[in-house]
């Protein structure tokens, strides 16, 4: 046994040397193979050359009527007519449009203007080229039964608001009324999830709600005590844009990379993109129901009732557009920057963050073609809420 073991050890060391060499060769081969496989996977996905200019738009959130104009431009062929092949990328809880555009994953992005200011200040060279929503759609809701019928009465209450750049409007409103949102002795700020459960379960006294989305969600829910849908009579709605609150900021804007827009060809692309997008928004203004259908086609799990409400409210944020769609009142841009600075979203009022030259060019082309870019005659429809938003 002993001699057996000894000889086997000798044999093994001898063989071991040779074998180790072989193993290294095998290892190198395996590494090369997997490398090749990855390369092949990457290469096969390379884009093909086409006549249309390919551009990508990154939305702020998942498909809904908030983005109807872009879906309409795509479906009605406005982008194609302008010589563009537009790919719409939906957003979501883990997507920041600014990061996507700065990382060259998309050419155009949509987000609230103060967020763009903040990202720009952190060193990303992003420029807003159009302001589609001319006014703020943010509100804070309270139950009428709670007796909180003014912002000032939110003192000492649990106030819900979304995180990550969506607080400034509310914080400004609170501070205007002498409530410091950073002092827990003044008010308890609750980080609100992206559904209205906390408010409906009365776990917060006030909750943030967009006119076009969460407000409708409350109205589409049955009051468990009466078995009927909640109505506006059950709620106090504090609109940030209203004169009473007066801290509205500009929301959805179209932005691009600063270095991208320096290129002449890209400037032409930007004008084409904005022109076709504006056409889409004009279509959605004049054909609300058809536009809702377009949205539903792109988001198959959405409810028609809820999206009909949303389309109407979104149009109300855009129309009438005193300076023409895409061009915000200068005072609104200033107010947005001022509030953002006051509440620490940014340290300095940004310079060069907006450049509406291309939006103006797109507007001029549309006007020359006889399109109504102001929508002065547009009237908000009276949309009836449906149970469950269906």
């Amino acid at each position, binding site marked *: 046994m002993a001699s057996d073991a000894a000889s086997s050890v000798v044999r093994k060391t001898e063989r071991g040397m040779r074998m180790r060499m072989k193993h290294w060769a095998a290892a190198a081969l395996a590494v090369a193979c997997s490398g090749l496989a990855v390369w092949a996977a990457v290469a096969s996905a390379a884009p093909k050359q086409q006549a249309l200019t390919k551009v990508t738009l990154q939305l702020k959130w998942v498909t809904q009527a908030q983005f109807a104009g872009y879906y309409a431009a795509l479906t009605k062929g406005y982008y194609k007519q302008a010589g563009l092949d537009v790919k719409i990328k939906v957003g979501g809880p883990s997507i920041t449009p600014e990061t996507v555009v700065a990382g060259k994953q998309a050419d155009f992005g949509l987000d609230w203007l103060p967020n763009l200011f903040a990202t720009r200040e952190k060193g990303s060279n992003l420029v807003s080229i159009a302001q589609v929503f001319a006014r703020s759609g943010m509100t804070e809701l309270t139950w009428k039964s709670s007796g909180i019928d003014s912002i000032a009465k939110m003192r000492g209450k649990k106030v819900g608001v979304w995180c990550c750049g969506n607080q400034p409007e509310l914080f400004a409103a609170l501070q205007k009324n002498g409530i410091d949102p950073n002092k827990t002795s003044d008010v308890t700020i609750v980080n609100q999830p992206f559904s*209205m459960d906390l408010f409906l379960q009365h776990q917060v006294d006030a909750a943030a709600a967009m006119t076009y989305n969460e407000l409708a969600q409350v109205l589409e829910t049955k009051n468990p005590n009466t078995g009927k849908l909640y109505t506006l009579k059950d709620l106090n709605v504090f609109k940030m844009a209203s004169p009473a609150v007066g801290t509205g900021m500009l929301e959805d804007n179209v932005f691009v990379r600063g270095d991208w827009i320096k290129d002449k060809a890209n400037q032409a692309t930007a004008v084409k993109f904005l022109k076709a997008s504006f056409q889409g928004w004009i279509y959605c203004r004049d054909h609300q129901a058809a536009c809702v259908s377009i949205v539903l086609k792109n988001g198959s799990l959405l409810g028609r009732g809820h999206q009909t409400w949303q389309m109407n409210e979104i149009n109300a944020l855009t129309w009438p557009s005193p300076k023409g769609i895409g061009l915000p009142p200068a005072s609104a841009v200033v107010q947005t920057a001022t509030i953002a600075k006051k509440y620490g979203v940014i340290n300095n009022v940004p310079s060069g963050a907006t450049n509406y030259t291309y939006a103006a060019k797109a507007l001029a082309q549309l006007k020359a073609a006889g399109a109504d870019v102001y929508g002065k005659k547009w009237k908000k429809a009276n949309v009836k809420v*449906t149970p469950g938003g269906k």
Partner: protein
Amino acid sequence: MQGGNGSGTLRKLATLLVVPVALIVLWEGYKWLWQTTGWGWPFVVNDTTMPHVYSILQAFSQPTTTGGPPLIQSLLHAAWFTMKEAIAGFLLGGVIGFGLAVLLAHVRLLERGLLPFVVGSQTVPILAIAPMVVIGLGSKGVQGWKSVAILAAWLTFFPVAINTLRGLKSPDRRAVELMQSYAASQWSILWRLRVPASLPYIFTALKISATASVIGAIIGETPASIQDGLGGAIVNFNQYYSLQPTFLWATNIICAAMGLVFFGLVVIAEHLVVRRAPENVV
């Protein structure tokens, strides 16, 4: 197992039903107790936070929009979409995991050097990796669903690699030495001895990976801007939870069912493959 006779099959079916029935009883019992006592901890229980099981099942037949198809139809579409990503990732991860194990089993130095990193790769949360993978590959022009498949592969390769490695080393030393004494090459030792011996280990790993790849696919969809799969459905129904809480629960059931189906497919494959494996499986 005594398949074939009627009462045995019946008993098997009964044991299979015990768990879901117990779960339903637990769910409804909890709901009833909390609602009648009005307990608010850890959360208020009502039809929104915990809908009845029957209303969750009913939700499958309801349309998500007026005049639309029933929820089950939309969800099956979404499940098929996600399943494809999961299968692609599962296959990719399986091949990589197997290759890695063969490599590590033969090169001691690599095993010592690489294994800690292989283990480390799994302690990084998938939620943190997902956006990086999607954006990183996206900049190289890789389509969204392929990035998602790679995330599924990320969760798949690890159990396969670890278990296969163990399996490859499992044959009796004497068996290896016997092969060597016949001057068998490493290659034939691998395919005639080590791989057959590792099959039970590999299939254990594949069963774990089957469900893990489904999770990878669902989680990867959100950062990849994919709305067509179950991940997209979860985000959507989460947003409208207060309106239709049952839709989100119904989606969860489909996710779980999909994991089960995948798991079942691997079990079937195991029966087919391992049964036909040569006698020296040991």
